[in-house]
């Protein structure tokens, strides 16, 4: 089964940068051995036992949990622990070297990378997700449309009731109930917070003046309005149990919880709801994607959802423990290839081909302690 998986991924990626490697994909028929585009025969029978500890983004957790579970089922010698405590936790943990890998919804800036204790860090795009604006209005099963200025007015406290005419004007919805709007933000710093802040800065002229900042921030800028909840789970739970609540959660969580989500106005003026297709459409807008050019917020296109982002896995380029480094590289390679098949059902769009090949070429840069390539 692994061989089939491997074959599929090679078919997909053969045309990309790794054509040379894929020629090695001639697995012996009997042994449970897998050779893939990373070019190293990986014998699942003789591979050393590895426990890989990771921490970081909460948004990617449902996807990671599933993919790591599948990977461990196929490669029982690799055990993965992932602590979904938040992107910033992951960033700090990898900088301090207390984890083997981290994940952040927003790639680290060069200043943060400089603080890393173990040298250069590689940032690998591993999934494409969206941020839903989810709400709980009894009797309203959809149809809400919001644009930047109205969303900003909700999150800065200017709009306090759902039947506010400003919401009705942009939404076209006429019969919203007369109950208080309870905006919920993340109490911890977060990728979804960065995405929404970025969207509001781009689309709502008054937002920057309110927050006093011109660059998006992972820490929610207006904490004195509404309620702060920890992680996607905290926000989702609050929206779930409170009539009148509106909050931003990773689309995967909103899907899991069965939330109704608002459509958002994108750069082209179209109102688009979050869905696999609209998030995938945002992903295709990425051109020249890199860890320093990563934003796909408020892109144009009739079907493009404006709140989407790639999630980035962070590993040290130099892996002191070769066996562990190999296991780690293999794991991330699996996540960015075969594992992508799990994305759709969980509310993430599969990585576009160009991004998958960026992931592969970045993984190729992994090195041993002496600087020799880990995969050749």
């Amino acid at each position, binding site marked *: 089964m692994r061989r089939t998986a491997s074959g599929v991924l090679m078919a997909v990626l053969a045309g990309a940068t790794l054509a040379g490697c894929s020629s090695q994909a001639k697995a012996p028929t009997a042994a449970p051995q897998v050779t893939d585009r990373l070019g190293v025969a990986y014998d699942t029978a003789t591979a050393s036992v590895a426990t890989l500890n990771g921490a970081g983004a909460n948004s990617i957790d449902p996807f990671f949990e599933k993919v790591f579970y599948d990977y461990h089922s196929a490669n029982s010698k690799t055990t993965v622990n992932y602590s979904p*405590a938040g992107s910033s936790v992951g960033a700090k943990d990898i900088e301090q070297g207390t984890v083997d890998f981290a994940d952040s919804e927003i790639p680290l800036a060069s200043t*943060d990378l400089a603080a890393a204790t173990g040298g250069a860090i590689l940032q690998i795009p591993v999934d494409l997700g969206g941020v839903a604006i989810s709400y709980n209005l009894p009797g309203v099963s959809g149809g809400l449309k919001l644009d930047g200025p109205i969303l900003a007015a909700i999150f800065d406290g200017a709009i306090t009731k759902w039947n506010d005419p400003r919401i009705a004007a942009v939404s076209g919805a006429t019969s919203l109930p007369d109950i*208080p709007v309870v905006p919920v933000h993340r109490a911890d710093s977060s990728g979804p917070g960065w995405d929404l802040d970025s969207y509001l800065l781009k689309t709502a002229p008054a937002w920057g003046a309110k927050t006093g900042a011109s660059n998006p921030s992972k820490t929610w800028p207006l904490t*004195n309005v509404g309620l702060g909840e*920890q992680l996607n789970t905290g926000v989702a*739970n609050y929206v779930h*149990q409170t009539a009148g609540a509106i909050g931003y959660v990773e689309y995967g969580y909103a899907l899991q919880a069965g939330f109704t989500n608002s459509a958002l106005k994108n750069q082209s003026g179209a109102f688009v709801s979050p869905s696999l297709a609209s998030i995938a459409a945002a992903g295709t807008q990425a051109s020249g994607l890199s860890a320093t050019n990563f934003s796909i917020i408020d892109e144009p296109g009739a079907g493009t959802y404006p709140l989407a982002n790639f999630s980035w896995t962070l590993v040290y380029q130099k892996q002191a423990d070769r066996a562990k480094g190999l296991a780690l590289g293999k794991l991330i390679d699996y996540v960015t290839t075969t594992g992508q098949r799990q994305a759709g059902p969980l509310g993430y769009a599969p990585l576009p081909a160009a991004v998958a090949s960026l992931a592969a070429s970045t993984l190729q840069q992994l090195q041993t302690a002496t600087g020799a390539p880990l995969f050749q």
Partner: protein
Amino acid sequence: MTGWLVRPRRPVRAYSVLCWTAVGLFAAVLAAVAVTIGAESARAWAHAGLGFLWSGTWNPARDHYGGGLLVVGTVVTTGCAMLLAVPIGLGIAVYLAELSPRWLSAPVSAAIDLLAAVPSIVVGLWALLVVSPFFARDVEPTLARTPGLRSVFAGPAYGPGILLAAVVLTIMVLPTVVALSRNALQAVSGAEREAARALGATPWQVVRTAVLPAARPGIAGAVTLAVGRALGESIAVAMVIGNRPGLPRSLLQPGATLGSAIVNQFGEASPGLGESSVVALAAVLLALTVAVNAAGIGLLGRGGPPGRPAPGPPRRLAESPGAVGPAGAGPTGLVLLADPIDAATRSLPRRRWASRVMYNLCAACVIAGAAPLVALLYYTIARGHGALSLGFLTQAPRPAGIPGGGIATAISGSAKIVGLGLVMAVPVGLLSALFLYDRRGKAAGTIRFGADVLTGVPSIVLGIFAYGVLVRPFHHSSTVAAGFALAVLMVPIMIGGNEEALRAVPEDLFEAGLALGARRARVAGRIVVREALARLVTANLLAASRGVGETAPLLFTVAAPSAALTLLIFDRGPQAFASAQQTAWACALVLLAAVLALGATARAVAWRLTRHQR
């Protein structure tokens, strides 16, 4: 009394060395906690100075760190909790100690002792999933509409907020208030009660004029220790307070406390100034709780801790006629006589009526205190039991959407962490207690005080400490680090419990052993420890039950939520879909069962022992 007998007369032996080592280790840990928290927060203090304490801005994005609003939030939530917990707790204590029939008081007291061990994460889960929606829908709007309360309960009914956090804290500290004040009430000598009764006092008048005043220092101590516990509670509060620092204008408003901010911020604080500032919050919290607990210990010591005779001036019976409200631990029994209102102007039916009213009020307190605890148990069982099955207990967790799977890794992880903690803590706890048993003087007093103070240190602070000394330097989170954090938490509880257990052994036995020429180690091991064994087991089991239920020390030391029961509850509880929440409830049920089983075993051991001795 034993001074001349137990002073070492022989050359130092291995036993002595062991005891000193244990005590040395304990003292070193105590010092290390203070030094680590101090050193790691130094950068924040250097950056912000004392202004850290009153600056209200907390903005990591701009490197502005001030803990002022968090201190205010901590004080306000604790204060509100005390407004609820002290009257209710005192009412319950009075009812149990003075008014209730004996057949009722013993089981209720035992239940309250057991409930003191309910893990804060379970209270938090229940408050988040059950109480918060109820408050948002029913309680808070009603309060906001009630004339006279509107100014205090203004604004939107969010559910999470200062009020809900205060209610959670009330539930958590109530057993402390009840147990310690009940002890203080029971320690009041029977003669005073009888004197009052002989003078024709009604049951309530006995309580008011004879018992309460005499027990006042003990009650004050109980309240102070409860304040310490409320100040330091972090996990449950973080789950329900709404995490919005600000000056509280309404009790319905979301807030933030030092503890909740540490839970939310420590993990993600950037190395350097950011992290140092969060540790500075921990330092403030540490200083606050140590001060409050030291005061509480002082008060309890002055009033006479349970079981020990109260030192202080001998009690005189009569006092000048005007002294209705007795000052301090003064004489009380005959104040009734000196109170002309009570004695003369109030008719007997009126006094009986007053007594009835107070009796019913105290009984109402029992119901008010018991109701949330019963509800908590009910919901945990009702929502958790459906998921329980053999497979659930023996299989590893599976991702959402894949049927089957369980909590096996969390159970084994928790067992490993607690087991490791016990391996580290039990020897140190036992040998330190033997050290204290054997010696009087400054060293012993200091160690005893240190243990008492460390017992009250918030567990989140110990989590940061373990992160600082074991996780960061060794570059990975580990069972060892988590076990160490729990050991530091359990050792002082063990020292206190063990010492009490040893003291229960008649000193003559020890002295007789020595007089027969046996070595101290032999006497201690063969006679004293053996004689006190059941009580020692009890003390250690109680400490273990406390360790099993802890969340905060594991938060920064364990690799993944699936590696400990409490962390799994913290992770799954807030998920917005049913299967994850059910997993959390089932974990809570397993955890509760484990904690209560440990506590019940401990008490059964103690009970059998006392029956045997009787």
